[in-house]
């Protein structure tokens, strides 16, 4: 936090950009005095509860919902069969290869269930409680099918199939080969000539986004029009997709994301329940609401990560890297959701990291299993890539007997080499890895900690110390539309904004980047305050309603400020250009003689003259006196489509204490220096870095979605799916270097995912550095005390965890009343 306090003292004179403003939206978000979707109450509204499959893989042989239909307060019950003809398939917008196999994704199962928690019937009742009570009355018979859970087994010859109408469990095989693309040399050749080859298998465990506000949807039918409120990150994309799935014409469907309490990619989705709400509201002609419980959320909202990575790196004896080869198995889960297949493919371009690999080949198999689908989760593909490269660089350093930092230095892109086109074909825009690293070393107190590490080793202290390094970059600002097209992504990556100048001089900014907690309202207000020279308080930011903000591509991939903010700045430029003509007219001067600063047009060399842009807004509202041949409006709209990604980078250092007696790991110190380009609001940047670090550290140390052998999610509550709290995290020493991004007018690179992407390998590298001298080579994430202890005392990577729930807060499940349908 110190960094922020220092910065607040030194903003530019009256500039909003760079000010550590507190977020204007927070008071209402934190106190809950706002519209969350679940707060919506409409006259005559009915409530949905979903009967969910208690088994991972089975044929549905009988569905009896008579008792549920007769339960008090129940208005209707729909089964998969009832909706089969109109439900279509949930969309997958990213066919990563032309021959990718997509089995289709029903919103509600008709004949077969493919993961625990899949919807099999929907109860519609007059109250939420009545709907939930009736769930237990649905009687469904299942004929079990073999359950496919392990990816390595799923791709083996003769494996049981998730979808028996398909030939295998492989959805696609995606290849990027730098040699074939012409961005690098031949990989096989690079490896065959190398002095040293290091190969590792890393496991990216399955994670659950665990956003704070559970998913919720409300649909109101009005004639042939429908309004869908949803706790979604992507109202604009949802509108297009829901229209295509349900057949409701796009112009008859309005989607509203009111205030949304977090998503982390978990709400970058077209959810089965959103479609079910639309279908049922259409059937009944009544407003309906569905809000998930936390258990439903953990069990059925899409998960993230879940990859097995086989990574080979080749180098010469001096530590010059020669080639990188990556082979992935990526768990799709049972179906392909919105961008399920694209997540590992997006990562493909980041494996080379900040290093000058001459050769690179990437292959990935998307694999079906009987688990809930995976999809975007903070970083989406890039944390996995960063983990693999930053872990293998440490392994290579060990193999070469080199200092891990020296090895990195020797191979990273030097500041003078920007812009630099990598072996993956990406043109890195700007940065300076050395400076960021130096600053991080100082923040950490690197030399002293290395000295302490030596002392602890020598004295055989039961608590050992290690230091982990992660020098990372990521591609942000998703995304240049043409690049997305070349990757077969189903949409572009532009963003839209408009500015409305109100008669009283107040400003409405309409953004297509729908926030879900990031602070867009504050940052956008700062941008507009500077551009138009109006007070920060005079700006209101509107978002999230397709009837107000008709064009947009929403918030994910650290794109909002970079793309959406740039659209706002461009729109402001247009407002100024339009106002200039009117100012010239009113001031009776030539446009060329006008200068615009501090919100005022004045005639050059004529002090005292001047007209504020807010005054012009009133003048043009009255429209009594304006130039011939133009429209009486200074409102403007802009769409920004970047030509390249932006590439934040940074150096993260973690010092870790490992209690070798118990295996308990404790972060002693954490220092990060991030280059996110121009900083619009240091407080928001700091907040994003802190949150990202928490999630990245959580992957390293705490979180893991575990299924038992039958495909039940064992980590089905927060007792067993361990999300750390502030009390479990260290103080963060953060800093920044600033290299403005050349690709957008703000110079911003994106900060939403940086902390999450960078931190995981720093933490794991630190733990390994502490115990490597004890013979430990790898510890599987998350680094539970048990795994660390086993790795130290029994060898291996710590092994599997016992898949039983912890007994804390449990009642033996045999005590449970009959929950056929299992909606907990």
């Amino acid at each position, binding site marked *: 936090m110190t960094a922020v306090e220092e910065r607040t003292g030194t903003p530019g004179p009256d500039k909003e950009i760079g000010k550590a403003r507190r977020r204007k939206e927070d008071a209402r978000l934190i106190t809950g005095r706002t519209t969350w979707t679940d707060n919506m109450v409409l006259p005559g509204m009915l409530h949905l509860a979903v009967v969910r499959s208690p088994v991972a893989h089975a044929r549905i042989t009988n569905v009896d919902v008579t008792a549920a239909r007769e339960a008090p307060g129940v208005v209707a019950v729909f089964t998969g069969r009832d909706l089969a003809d109109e439900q279509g398939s949930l969309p997958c917008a990213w066919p990563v290869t032309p021959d990718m196999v997509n089995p289709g994704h029903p919103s509600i199962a008709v004949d077969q269930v493919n993961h625990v928690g899949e919807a099999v019937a929907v109860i519609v009742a007059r109250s939420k*409680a009545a709907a939930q009570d009736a769930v237990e009355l649905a009687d469904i018979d299942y004929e079990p099918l073999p359950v496919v859970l392990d990816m390595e087994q799923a791709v083996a010859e003769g494996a049981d199939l998730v979808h028996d109408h398909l030939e295998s469990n492989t959805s696609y095989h995606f290849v990027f080969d730098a040699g074939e693309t012409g961005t690098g040399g031949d990989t096989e050749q690079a490896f065959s000539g190398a002095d040293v080859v290091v190969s590792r298998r890393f496991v990216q465990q399955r994670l659950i986004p665990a956003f704070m506000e559970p998913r919720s949807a409300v649909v109101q039918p009005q004639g042939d029009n429908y309004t869908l409120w949803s706790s979604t990150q992507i109202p604009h994309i949802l509108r297009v997709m829901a229209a295509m799935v349900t057949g409701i014409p796009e112009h008859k469907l309005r989607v509203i994301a009111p205030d949304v309490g977090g998503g982390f990619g978990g709400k970058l989705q077209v959810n089965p329940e959103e479609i079910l709400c639309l279908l049922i509201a259409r059937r009944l002609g009544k407003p309906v609401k569905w809000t998930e*419980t936390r258990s439903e959320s953990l069990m059925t909202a899409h998960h993230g990560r879940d990859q097995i990575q086989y990574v080979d790196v080749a180098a010469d004896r001096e530590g010059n890297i020669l080639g990188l080869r990556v082979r992935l198995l990526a768990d799709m889960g049972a179906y392909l959701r919105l961008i399920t297949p694209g997540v590992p493919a997006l990562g493909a371009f980041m494996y080379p990291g900040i290093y000058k690999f001459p050769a690179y080949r990437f292959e990935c198999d998307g694999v079906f299993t009987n688990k809930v689908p995976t999809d975007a989760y903070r970083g989406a593909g890039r944390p996995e890539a960063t983990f693999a490269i930053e872990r293998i660089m440490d392994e290579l350093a060990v193999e070469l007997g080199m200092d891990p930092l020296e090895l990195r230095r020797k191979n990273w892109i030097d500041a003078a080499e920007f812009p630099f086109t990598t072996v993956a074909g990406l043109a890195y825009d700007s940065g300076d890895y050395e400076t960021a690293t130096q600053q991080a070393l100082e923040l950490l107190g690197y030399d002293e900690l290395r000295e302490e590490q030596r002392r602890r080793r020598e004295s055989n202290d039961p608590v050992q110390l290690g230091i982990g390094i992660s020098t990372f970059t990521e591609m942000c600002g998703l995304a240049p539309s043409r690049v997305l097209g070349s990757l077969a992504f189903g949409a572009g990556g532009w963003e839209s904004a408009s500015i409305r100048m109100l008669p009283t001089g107040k400003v409405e900014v309409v953004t297509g980047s729908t926030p879900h907690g990031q602070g867009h309202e504050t940052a956008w207000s700062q941008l507009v305050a500077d551009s138009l020279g109006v007070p920060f308080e005079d700006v209101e930011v509107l978002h999230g309603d397709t009837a107000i903000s008709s064009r947009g591509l929403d918030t994910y991939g650290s794109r909002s400020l970079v793309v959406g903010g740039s659209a706002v700045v461009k729109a402001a430029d247009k407002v100024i250009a339009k106002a200039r003509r009117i100012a010239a007219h009113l001031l009776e001067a030539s446009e060329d003689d006008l200068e615009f600063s501090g919100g005022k047009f004045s005639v050059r060399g004529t002090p005292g003259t001047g007209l504020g842009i807010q005054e012009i807004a009133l003048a043009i509202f009255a429209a009594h006196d304006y130039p011939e041949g133009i429209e009486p409006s200074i409102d403007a709209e802009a769409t920004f489509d970047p030509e390249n990604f932006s590439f934040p980078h940074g150096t993260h250092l973690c010092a870790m204490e490992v209690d070798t007696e118990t295996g308990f790991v404790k972060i002693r110190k954490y220092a990060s220096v991030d280059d996110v380009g121009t900083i619009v609001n240091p407080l928001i940047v700091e907040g994003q870095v802190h949150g990202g670090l928490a999630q990245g550290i959580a992957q390293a140390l*705490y979180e893991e979605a575990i299924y038992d052998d039958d495909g039940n999610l064992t980590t089905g509550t927060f007792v067993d799916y361990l999300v750390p*709290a502030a009390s479990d995290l260290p103080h963060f020493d953060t800093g920044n270097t600033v290299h403005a991004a050349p690709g957008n007018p703000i110079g911003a690179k994106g900060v939403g995912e940086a902390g999450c992407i960078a931190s995981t390998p720093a933490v794991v590298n630190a733990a390994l550095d502490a115990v490597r001298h004890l013979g430990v080579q790898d510890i599987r994430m998350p680094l539970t005390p048990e795994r660390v202890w086993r790795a130290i005392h029994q060898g291996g990577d710590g092994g599997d965890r*016992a898949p039983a729930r912890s007994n804390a807060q449990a009642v033996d499940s045999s005590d449970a009343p009959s929950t056929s349908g299992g909606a907990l």
Partner: protein
Amino acid sequence: MIPAPFAYARPTTVDEALQAIADGGEDVKVLAGGQSLIPVMRLRLAAPETVVDLGKVEGLRGVRDDGDAIVIGAMTTHSDVLADPLIAEHAPLIAEATGTVADRQVRHRGTFGGALVHADPAGDLPAVALALDAEFVIVGPGGRRTVPASEFFLDYLTTAVGEGELLVEVRVPKLAGSWGMHYEKFNRVAQAWSIVAVAAVVRRENGRITEARVGLTNMGPTPLRARQVEEALAGAEATAEAVAAASERAADGTEPSSDLNAQADYRQHLARVLTRRAVSTAAGL
């Protein structure tokens, strides 16, 4: 996460409470702080017919001095326990362990009595009560009885409190002489239950340990006393070596469970390490 329907009673006296339980039908649950009961009801793992809320019953909340013991009312909340001067003076181990329970919000509602009657093997207070030789005062239709800690915890989530009965208070004997206490808890995040924990109560005189009582959390379906450790420590020199040697026996005879946090062999290992740490700290080593 909506509980099944239930009837609700809110008595104001212990007698009324007993009557409400008797009248409540087949499956009656007593509600104290609700921090364990409400979650299982919301998960529909429990679906009582009637819930009898003790929140308004007089005289169950607070701590009093009763000569050779302090008496803690069953409805005394965890946060009351943390602020109480009698507990701080006579049984600081209880406060120390309570301080590791959950988070502020849970401690504000959860109760001492509720935690003991719930008897979650991973809960922190049962092993503490066992190590302090606490006594449990239970009332029921048949009157009032007192059960020693050693006979209170019967099985997984099962205590001597029978159907139709209430725990009203817990008597904790005051300890004479120079005693040290420590609760050593091992968990992954601050607000979590114990993977394993050890409550140590040690009397030290003239460089020797004259008596030691060691309670184990989550080393079986009920809290346990590590009797072999206690025997090895009785009369031993108060040295790191003696404590370490005695602690090696901490897991003897235990059959802990295997779950996401720990498999049985690791739990047994933890019990030995944590016993050494707990006893060392309690003995001032």
